[in-house]
């Protein structure tokens, strides 16, 4: 193959990669062509060819730069955001689906809209700690630490966050902002004065966030064993666990009404023992966890 033929072949390849959007591969090929030209006493004198290849390299570099500088996640239209929420929320319960939809928006970089959704959920009192954490993640992704801190200051005045919740949220906010390289002053959490009379509802609202639990059944086929579960959702003092389909016997043994006299609860700030009652079980009929079981346990608030 003559040098000319080689250049022609390489140019064809490079141009095709460029049209296919394989910009790095195209650039490598143009650079290879340039090297071949440089080694040829004849071709190196062909100013038109040299200029042409240089111009192609510059053009590819421009495209690579444009691509690098383009926003990773452009803001989508409301319709597309709604579609994302719809396509990526799998839970059957309205609250869980709403959280999943908002999380999906955040995962797809629609942070502004996700913040609005989370705010709406927070106003409705849906999983406040989980929602607050997601909002903090959005602020961090938007690189607006001041807005995150201002939001936290507002939360301090909200009734549905207990002192423990606020301490936990503050710690989460601090870690998240530090991870993003922000050093921002965050207001401290002062203990709230005890409420004169706590209604049952109020007590439920300030229940500590639990991330995992260990069960030690006293009766039934699992008696004497320790079973560890992550908490999938929490609403006040009721936690929802997921039991894999292969552990059907576990799900079967924990029927509604079953008393659990030894529950170890793991919260992000403490570990404590409690008691509780199985308040519901269900087999998941659709979604990625189809066939698995949900188990609701209401932990005694006192």
């Amino acid at each position: 193959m003559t040098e000319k033929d080689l250049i022609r072949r390489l140019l064809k390849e490079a141009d095709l990669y460029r049209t296919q959007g394989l910009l790095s591969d195209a650039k490598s090929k143009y650079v290879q062509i340039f090297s071949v030209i440089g080694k040829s006493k004849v071709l190196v004198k062909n100013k038109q060819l040299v200029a042409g290849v240089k111009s192609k390299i510059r053009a590819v570099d421009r495209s690579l730069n444009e691509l690098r500088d383009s926003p990773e996640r452009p803001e989508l239209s409301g319709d597309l955001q709604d579609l994302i929420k719809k396509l990526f929320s799998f839970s059957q319960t309205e609250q869980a689906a709403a959280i999943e939809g908002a999380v999906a928006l955040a995962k797809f970089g629609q942070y502004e809209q996700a913040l609005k959704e989370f705010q709406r959920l927070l106003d409705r009192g849906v999983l406040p700690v989980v929602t607050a954490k997601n909002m903090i993640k959005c602020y961090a992704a938007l690189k607006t630490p001041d807005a995150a801190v201002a939001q936290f200051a507002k939360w301090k005045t909200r009734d549905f966050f207990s002192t423990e919740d606020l301490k936990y949220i503050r710690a989460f906010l601090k870690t998240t902002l530090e991870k993003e390289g922000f050093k921002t002053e965050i207001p401290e959490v002062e203990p709230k004065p005890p409420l004169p009379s706590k209604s049952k509802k109020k007590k439920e609202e300030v229940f500590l966030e639990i991330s995992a639990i260990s069960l030690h059944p006293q009766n039934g086929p699992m008696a004497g064993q320790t079973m560890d579960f992550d908490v999938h959702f929490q609403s006040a003092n009721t936690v929802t666990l997921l039991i894999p389909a292969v552990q059907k016997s576990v799900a079967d043994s924990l029927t509604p009404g079953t008393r659990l006299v030894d529950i170890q609860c793991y919260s992000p700030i403490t570990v404590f023992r409690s008691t509780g009652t199985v308040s519901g079980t269900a087999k998941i009929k659709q979604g990625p966890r189809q066939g698995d079981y949900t188990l609701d346990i209401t932990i005694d608030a006192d």
Partner: protein
Amino acid sequence: MAIFNAKDRIIECKLVYYGPGRCGKTTNLEYIFKAFHKQTNSEMVSINTMGDRTLFFDFLPMGLGKIRGCDVKVQLYTVPGQSRYRSTRKMVLKGVDGVVFVADSLEVRRKANLLSLKDLAENLKEEGKSLFNIPLVLQYNKRDLEQQGIPILPVETLDQDLNSKLKVPSHMASALKGEGVGTTLKEALLLTLRHLQKELHWTK
């Protein structure tokens, strides 16, 4: 993810087109949208930016009509191939029932194919699934470029690289021309629906 409504006899499943950036995943869906117009009951949703790169995902719902008395609906998705969109690929894979892995036959994309298949394996693992038991079809795309004198990988090399352990069906294709697109889709659907039959007994 597959949903089987036994009362109304409707089954819905999710098929994801996976592969390295610029391998032709969106081109596959565009061709399906045009060629199978009767089965595509709404517009294809595609969100692109400069250079036609998929940033989020493509989405194409299809209705296959009645199969053994059951109304079969399929959602086709593509993932963004660029490495920086790993979290998006993980999201799109949630609840996946079957996968079409589109490999780029270009010689210069050999490493990209391997990395993408590894990425798929890792993301499936996080979903509690495995490359070895999910319905999977490989498609070796851009075969037509050989005629233009562009170096492409021999099928044997692609098989050796990608399919020596998996041993799943593979199809040669030129998605831009529509060649091999239909056969890939049909095989992927067949495998997926068979797999779902074992799990959900939807044809009973």
